[in-house]
């Protein structure tokens, strides 16, 4: 029972983190950086 309560509390915190992240623009930031071909990450540009 204690473990289930801990799981529920953690889930609420983590989902709140996702929602908060979305509100402060994390989704857009992730899309922006994910849409750029990072050549240096592939060892193609020093």
């Amino acid at each position, binding site marked *: 029972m204690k473990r289930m309560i801990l799981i529920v509390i953690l889930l609420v915190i983590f989902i*709140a983190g996702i929602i908060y992240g979305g509100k402060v623009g994390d989704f857009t930031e992730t899309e922006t950086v994910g849409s750029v071909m990072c050549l240096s990450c592939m*060892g193609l540009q020093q």
Partner: protein
Amino acid sequence: MKLKRIVQFIASAITLGNYPAIWQGGIYQGPLKQGCVPILNCWGCPLSLFSCPIGALQHFFNLHLIPSYIAGFFGAIGTVVGRMACGWLCPFGLFQDLIYKLKTFKMRMPKFFSYIKYGVLIVIAGIIAWISGEPWFCKLCPAGYIEAGIPLVLADKTGDIKALVGWLFWIKMAILIIIINFSIFIKRFFCRAFCPIGAIYSIFNKFSMFQMKIDKEKCINCDSCQAVCPMHVPIQNSPHNIDCIRCLDCVKKCPTKAISYGAK
């Protein structure tokens, strides 16, 4: 074919599902990139439809921002299923599973190697990314090299990309060759020793909603579960092991049905 293998192939086909890139080139740019897949997946891969969570984590560290979205994402998945995504969804895990099938002698990985991944997560993907402003795990990632680095160079018709090949490219190649070589002899060598995503999920294995359970009265200590385990986990002694990827191969293999699973 086993259900797990089918799911692994389907998950890989969806994760790397930007098929128009094969004839059009470039990478996918669209709203799906707002979402991360819960596994290692190079977002620089022309076929990749989604973002890499460890790449995104480093990006926020590079900008000295708190990665609320990514932390919440890892935490929510880890809390529900622990390390299960590694076993069922990861294309690089599937790749290692397949090359381990090569008929040759096999080796065991020293136990302390399992803790290297925490160093990779904290030092390379955390501290160095924060200080240097560069995603250094991406620069060394063998999955990124096989998914993005090699295809981009091979598909380059103009020679522009080939001209950019430098020392880091060859270091990445050396890392990939080492990982592939060891993965032939050692089960899921990269996942067990170096994967920072596996390191994050492994923290949740002890108390996640999804749990493995051993019936000690039924267990005859035959070790067939450990023999079939792709991570070589002694599940009969430690059902919450940090390296258990909940692939459930052991459940099917157990001759006495001593291993069960579920939300416990």
